[in-house]
C-alpha cells in the first residue's frame, strides 16, 4: 500500500504530468475560444499536427527553435482560418469540416515530411527549446521539484490559462465572445459583428492548438513523427467538455489527464494495462456528459452557422 502511495504522489510523476498536460492545455484553450464563439472545433488534432510539423521544420531550417514556435502559431492560425472560412462563410457543417481538416493535416504533414526528408516516418533531430530553472521556486521542497525546472512552454501554458480566463470573463471582448456563442442574433442586434468575432476566435483557436503541437516536436521530443499527436487533440476536446468550457476547468482536466498519462507506465508494472489508462479521459468525458459528475452543457449556439438576416 505504501508503495502505491509513494507511486501516486511521486514528484517525478507530477512533473511528468505537468509536461504531458502542456500540449493539451494549449489546445483545450483553443477549443474553448472556438466553442465559446459558437463554432465546434473537432479539428484541434489536425491543427496541433500542423503546428508540430511547422515547429520542427522551421527549427530545422533556421536552427532557432523559438522561430519554430512562431511558425507553428502561424500555421495553426492559417488552419484555423481555413476552418473559419468553411464553417462561417460557406456555412458548411462544422463537424464535417473538422473531420476534413484532421484528414488534411494527417496527409499534408506526411506528404511534406517525405518530400523534404525522404521516406522515413520521422524527421531528423532538430534544435529544441531547453528547460529553464526558476531561481527561488526551485528551492522550495517538493513543489520545487515539480515546477522549479521545466520547459518555458510549460510555464507559458499555465500563464495562458490565466490570461484566457481574464480575457473571457473580465474584458468586453470576452463578453461579446460569449454573447456570440450563446445568442448570436441578440449580439448582432446590439451591434456585435458576429462573423468577425467568430473568425477571430477560430483563428485564435488554431494558433493555440498549433502552439500545443510545438511542444510535442521541439520541446518534449526533438523531431516530428507521422501522426505524433496520437489523439491529443481529441483529449483536449474532452478536457474542454470535462472542464465545462472554462479555462480553469479545462486546466484541471488537462492536469488530470496528464497525470493519468504519466502514471500509465508505472501502473503497468503493478498489472494495470496501459490501454485502460489511455481510455480514461474518453470514458470520464462520456460520464461527465451523461451528467454523473455535474452536467456539462456547452454554449447554446455552438455548431450552428449564423445567417445574417
Amino acid at each position: 500500500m505504501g508503495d502505491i502511495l509513494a507511486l501516486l504522489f511521486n514528484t517525478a510523476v507530477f512533473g511528468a504530468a505537468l509536461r504531458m498536460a502542456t500540449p493539451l492545455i494549449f489546445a483545450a484553450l483553443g477549443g474553448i475560444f472556438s466553442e465559446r464563439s459558437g463554432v465546434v472545433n473537432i479539428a484541434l488534432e489536425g491543427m496541433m499536427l500542423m503546428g508540430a510539423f511547422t515547429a520542427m521544420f522551421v527549427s530545422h531550417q533556421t536552427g532557432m527553435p523559438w522561430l519554430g514556435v512562431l511558425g507553428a502559431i502561424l500555421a495553426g492560425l492559417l488552419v484555423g482560418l481555413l476552418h473559419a472560412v468553411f464553417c462561417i462563410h460557406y456555412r458548411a457543417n462544422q463537424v464535417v469540416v473538422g473531420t476534413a481538416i484532421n484528414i488534411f493535416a494527417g496527409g499534408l504533414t506526411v506528404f511534406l515530411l517525405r518530400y523534404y526528408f525522404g521516406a522515413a516516418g520521422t524527421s531528423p533531430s532538430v534544435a529544441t527549446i531547453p528547460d529553464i530553472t526558476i531561481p527561488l521556486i526551485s528551492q522550495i521542497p517538493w513543489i520545487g521539484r515539480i515546477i522549479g525546472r521545466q520547459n518555458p512552454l510549460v510555464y507559458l501554458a499555465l500563464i495562458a490559462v490565466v490570461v484566457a480566463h481574464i480575457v473571457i470573463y473580465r474584458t468586453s471582448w470576452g463578453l461579446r465572445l460569449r454573447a456570440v456563442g450563446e445568442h448570436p442574433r441578440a449580439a448582432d442586434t446590439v451591434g456585435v459583428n458576429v462573423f468577425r468575432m467568430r473568425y477571430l476566435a477560430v483563428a485564435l483557436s488554431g494558433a493555440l492548438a498549433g502552439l500545443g503541437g510545438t511542444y510535442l516536436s521541439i520541446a518534449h521530443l526533438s523531431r516530428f513523427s507521422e501522426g505524433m499527436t496520437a489523439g491529443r487533440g481529441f483529449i483536449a476536446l474532452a478536457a474542454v467538455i470535462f472542464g465545462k468550457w472554462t479555462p480553469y476547468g479545462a486546466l484541471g482536466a488537462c492536469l488530470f489527464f496528464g497525470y493519468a498519462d504519466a502514471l500509465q507506465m508505472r501502473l503497468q508494472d503493478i498489472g494495470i494495462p496501459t490501454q485502460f489508462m489511455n481510455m480514461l479521459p474518453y470514458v470520464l468525458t462520456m460520464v461527465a456528459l451523461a451528467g454523473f459528475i455535474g452536467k456539462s452543457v456547452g454554449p447554446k449556439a455552438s455548431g450552428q452557422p449564423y445567417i445574417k438576416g
Partner: protein
Amino acid sequence: MQSRLKTIRWQGIATPLVAVFLALLVGAGFILFVGENPLTAYRILFMESLGSVRNIATTLQRATPLMFAGLAVAFAYRAGLFNIGAEGQLYMGAFAAAWVGFTFTALPRLIHLPLAILAGMIGGALWGAIPGFLKAKLGIHEVINTIMLNFIALYLTDWLATGPFHGGSWVPETARVSASAALARLYPPTRLSSGIYLALLAALIAYLILWKTKQGYELRAVGLNPQAAEYGGINVAKNTIIAMAISGALAGLAGTEQILGLHQRFIVRFSADLGFMGVAVALLGKNHPVGVLLAAILFGALQTGSAAMDRLTSVPRELITIIQALIIFFVAADYLIRRILRMKEEA
C-alpha cells in the same frame, strides 16, 4: 416546376463532380510543388487503378470497406444523426468477427462464416447503439460521444488483441481465423474478397429499409424534422437508437470484411481511418446508397493508384489523403459550389 425539379436533380450530381474536379485541381498544385507534371501523375493514377482487370479488382478491394463505412454514415445521416463513430464501431465489429473466427474453429463453413459476419454486425450495432441511447434518453449530442467511443474501442481492442487474445507471436494481433470463417478471394492474386457482394447487398438493403418500409419512413421523418415526427406520433427516441444500431452494424461489417477477407486475423489499429473516410464517402455520395457505392469506388481507385504514383514519380502517396480531404471540404461547402455553378449559368 418541371425544369426546377430538373435543376435540383442536376445539382445533386453536379456538386460532387465539381468537388472532385476542384480537389484534383488543387491536388495538381501539390504535384507541381514537388516538381512533377500533374498530367503524368494523374495518368498513372488512372491507369494503375482502372487500366486493367487486375487493377480494377484491387480498386474494388480497396473500395469494399469504404462502401460499408460510407453506408453506415449515410444511414445515420438520413435519420438526422451524425455518426463519426464508424471507426470505433468498425473496430468492435472486427474484433467480434475475429473472435468467432478463431474460437469456434470446429464449425462447418456454412455455419461458421455467417456466424462470424453476424458477430461483426452485432459488435458494431451495440457500439453504435450506445451513443444512440445516450442521445435518445439523455439528449446528449452523438458527435462527442461517438468520438470518445472511437478511442475507447481502439484501446479496448488493442488490449484484447495484445492481452487476453494475443496470438502468441511478437506482433500485436490475434490468432488467425480458421479457413471456415474466411471470405473467399475472388480474383487472386488480388485480395478482392466476396465481401464486395455483401457490400452491394448491404447497399440494396439499406435502400429498401430507408425508402420501402414503414420503419425507414419513420427514420427519415425523424431526420427531416424530429419535432414534427414526434408530433405525428413517431417515437423519436426509439428511432434514434435503431438508426444508430443499424449504422453501427454497417460499420461493423466494414471491419468484418477487413478481418475475414483481407487480414484473416485482428491486427491492432488495422483500420487507418477507414471510418473517417466513410464520412467522406457518404458526403460525396450525397448520403444515397448508389452514390455511396460510386464514391467508395472513386476513393478505392485513388488509393490503389497512389502506390504506383508514389513508386513511379516523386509525388508522395499522401497526395491522395490530401485530395480526399479536399473533396470533403468542397462537398461540405456546396454553398460555394452552387455559387460557382450559378456564376457559370449567368456568364
